[in-house]
């Protein structure tokens, strides 16, 4: 390459933009072949990779003597053997005009979550259809997920057009059918293309075998489609990532502008507090900027000192997002364990992470036909429309207006797994009118009057382990010492407060949530509360623990082997559960998650109840609940 060619090449690089593309198709639609073809024809396949490809084509290929481009892009060993792609894979190719990042996602129903993952960062989706089969259930599902995740541009690649004799009629029928279906979705533009990934027709160049087709080749479309969602024209939004304090004279707020424009001298507000200040500098390592736009990673310094920290959203005072602790959102569930409404999860939105729970699952959406139906929970790969409640207000925009400030992930507090992906629709305003009243007679005052410190003694263990027996003895001893106590157990709660609940996982979670809230109120009243429930899940016990102050929650693990409990079987419940008469019975047909670090661990197979109760009394003495 001559020096001047190189210079013009490098100059062109400065203007080169980036496009993120999602490919989706059913099994055998030829998706991997298409990506392999794009990589091959844009000369992104190296000689050594080609050699491996030839070797692999002979070994695993499905295209006879021809090279199997699909093998270029399949990755992990297991998948290669099965001949399918099972995860999101990212591929790169480049032309003079654009660099492309291709998210390759599988077409199987059970992998909806992978497609949503790929879609969340994509500007455009290539939806593949087999010309012989037309619009299938999977095609509709892919289109719906793309639309739900906010993709505005669709290239409908009607593949294997060579196998239907390059028929214009078939092409037109599929095009019409797809457009009819897509009317209920939120796409801005749909371009249909007749292609053959295997032979390259209309992929890089327009094919002379489809003279009736007047549109661009797929690559030409990808190079020119304008996906600039006018991000710069939207209101300014900067989620603060990191506070930069190299010394006492510099205090900067680092983050990436997700939409809009900011200039020095602009007024900006902290969304949650509403406090406003002025941008004094836009700092970057390449020198200060006068103006920065969506996509720039910058550090702002502010003229007047106001309280700003990680998790805050900087916005224009005149165009602020919603701030609320309750909102409605679409959510895709991505975990093997089902969603449990009422359970506390963590929610990460922008750079803020807050505890949150689903207060109502309004309906589930069938991703195949968009029908709504009532549901109590969400399973892996299901989409629902839910109300959320967070423990503190968060700032957000509707997802359809801003993907960055309207999207959130849901994290399981115990496994730390990412279990849900949410897209906020609108805020719920009823929360704003509930204010806490400052009461002069408070918990401390009430407890002082009783000469004790309030606490929750939380007895957890299998049915028949001895929880209630021990708790009753403890309460009698405390009463005899003149302490003020209250007992919450299945007998007085299940028949009243929680009469409407059954024994499914979701109902168990709600049962414990209510018990924990009730216990918290009694603690506020200054009482020593004894809670005796199987409470099989760690998450709920943890939530209960976090409702009160550190030191006020004492977990008592009443532990006996299942065989011992079954032998005791004081209420005959195990027999009935084994006979199949009781469903969801802990230990038999429903799991029990033992505590990791209980305040006290009582092994009741070898310890008489009286001794166990004495040990609990010792514990609450040590904890300072009683003197």
């Amino acid at each position: 390459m001559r020096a001047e060619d190189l210079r013009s090449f490098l100059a062109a690089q400065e203007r080169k933009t980036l496009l993120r593309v999602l490919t989706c198709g059913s099994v055998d639609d030829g998706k991997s072949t298409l990506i392999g073809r794009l990589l091959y024809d844009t000369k992104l396949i190296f000689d050594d990779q080609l050699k491996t490809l030839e070797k692999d084509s002979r070994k695993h290929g499905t295209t006879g003597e021809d090279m199997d481009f699909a093998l270029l892009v399949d990755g992990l060993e297991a998948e290669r053997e099965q001949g399918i792609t099972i995860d999101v894979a990212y591929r790169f190719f480049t032309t003079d005009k654009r660099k492309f990042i291709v998210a390759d996602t599988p077409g199987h129903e059970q992998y909806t979550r992978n497609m949503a993952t790929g879609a969340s960062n994509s500007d455009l989706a290539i939806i593949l259809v087999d010309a012989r089969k037309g619009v299938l259930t999977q095609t509709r599902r892919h289109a719906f997920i793309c639309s739900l995740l906010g993709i505005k541009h669709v290239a409908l690649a009607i593949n294997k057009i060579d196998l239907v004799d390059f028929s214009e009629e078939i092409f037109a029928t599929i095009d019409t059918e797809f457009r009819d279906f897509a009317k209920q979705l939120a796409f801005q533009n749909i371009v249909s293309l007749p292609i053959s990934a295997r032979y390259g027709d209309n992929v890089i160049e327009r094919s002379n075998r489809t003279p009736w087709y007047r549109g661009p080749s797929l690559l030409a479309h990808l190079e020119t489609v304008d996906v600039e969602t006018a991000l710069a024209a939207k209101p300014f939004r900067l989620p603060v990532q990191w506070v930069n304090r190299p010394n006492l004279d510099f205090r900067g707020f680092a983050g990436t502008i997700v939409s809009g424009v900011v200039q020095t001298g602009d007024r900006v507000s902290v969304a949650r507090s509403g406090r406003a200040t002025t941008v004094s500098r836009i700092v970057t390592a390449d020198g200060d900027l006068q103006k920065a736009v969506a996509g720039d990673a910058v550090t702002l310094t502010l003229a007047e000192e106001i309280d700003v920290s990680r998790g805050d959203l900087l916005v224009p005072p005149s165009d602020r997002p919603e701030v609320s602790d309750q909102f409605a959102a679409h959510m895709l569930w991505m975990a093997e364990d089902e969603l449990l409404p009422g359970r506390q999860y963590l929610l990460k939105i922008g750079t803020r992470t807050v505890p949150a729970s689903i207060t109502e699952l309004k309906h589930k959406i069938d991703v195949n036909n968009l029908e709504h139906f009532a549901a109590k929970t969400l399973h892996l790969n299901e989409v629902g429309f839910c109300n959320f409640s967070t423990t503190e207000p968060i700032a957000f925009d509707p997802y359809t207006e801003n993907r960055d400030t309207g999207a959130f992930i849901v994290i399981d507090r115990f496994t730390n797994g990412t279990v849900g992906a949410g897209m906020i629709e609108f805020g719920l305003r009823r929360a704003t009118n509930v204010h806490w009243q400052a009461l002069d007679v408070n918990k401390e005052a009430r407890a002082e009057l009783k000469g004790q410190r309030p606490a929750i003694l939380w007895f957890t263990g299998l049915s028949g382990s001895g929880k209630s027996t021990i708790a009753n003895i403890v309460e009698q001893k405390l009463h005899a010492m003149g302490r003020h106590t209250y007992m919450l157990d299945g007998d007085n709660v299940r028949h009243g407060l929680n009469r409407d609940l059954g024994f499914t996982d979701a109902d168990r979670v709600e049962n414990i949530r209510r018990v924990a809230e009730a216990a918290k109120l009694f603690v506020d009243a200054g009482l020593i509360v004894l809670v005796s429930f199987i409470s099989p899940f760690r998450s709920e016990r943890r939530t209960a623990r976090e409702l009160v102050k550190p030191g006020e929650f004492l977990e008592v693990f009443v532990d006996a082997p299942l065989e011992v409990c079954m032998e005791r079987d004081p209420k005959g419940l195990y027999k009935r559960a084994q006979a199949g008469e009781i469903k969801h019975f802990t230990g038999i047909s429903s799991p029990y998650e033992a505590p990791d670090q209980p305040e006290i661990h009582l092994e009741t197979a070898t310890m008489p109840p009286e001794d166990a109760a004495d040990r609990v009394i010792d514990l609450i003495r040590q904890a300072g609940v009683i003197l």
Partner: protein
Amino acid sequence: MTTTTAQKTAISHLKRLEAESIFIMREVAAEFRNPVMLYSIGKDSSVMLHLAMKAFYPSKPPFPLLHVDTGWKFREMISFRDATAKQLGLNLLVHTNEEGARRGINPFDSGSTVHTQVMKTEGLKQALDKYGFDAAFGGARRDEEKSRAKERIFSFRSAAHAWDPKNQRPELWRLFNTRVRQGESIRVFPLSNWTELDIWQYILSENIPIVPLYFAARRKVVERDGALIMRDDDRMKLKPGESEQERLIRFRTLGCYPLTGAIESGAATLEEIVAEMLAARTSERQGRVIDHDETASMEKKKREGYF
């Protein structure tokens, strides 16, 4: 629908990649207790370090650099490493698997697989455990190798440092789940979406210093098993029939010198390297001896804890 409006508001692809990497680094600095940046001295590490300097400017990056030294790196790499850390004023930690060194593990007698496993993979795990790091930046890119294409940007590792391809967290939007329990960690790859060409273009446009071995010069090499190996010290013995020849060579990738093949090239400047890249017909990993063992070798190494 015109391209002119697109270009007016659009940021160039390199700027976009840069911003993405900076975002990732800031998330790690904000959310982890004790992060570290793995510094392997290669061109990708040079770019990663340059991005870290930018991400936290005017502060220094709020984490140390860690080099896992197998004892077999090119001497020029070591001097470049020390000069870089000194010049930037950064805290550089160097760790060698002393136990492996005592056992006499080396690339010649132990073979490349054992040498890499013990001195690199085990050495890395030792260092991560020793300092209790909960996040480690690595310079790996998705375009390097097929199994990397599916790697997350935030790649979860168990307390035993194992990578389970079936148990990785979905990664949506820019919302990275950084939560780990005691002992668990996350490997973070801020260059995931960069390609080799992007790296070279960025080095050129930002004028980033790199080890001189990347530039063509006349150097003495031995041809062994089809690879051109530079005899960096006399621990490498010549086999019968082998001889050192001076050739015009450079390296596309740098690692342990006995395991890193040179290419014949006259590209002595960054411009010439980029020009050569554009005409290149072999992928950079071809120079790495460890990838040739078997097709899916990289994936196996990753499961064992290799970066």
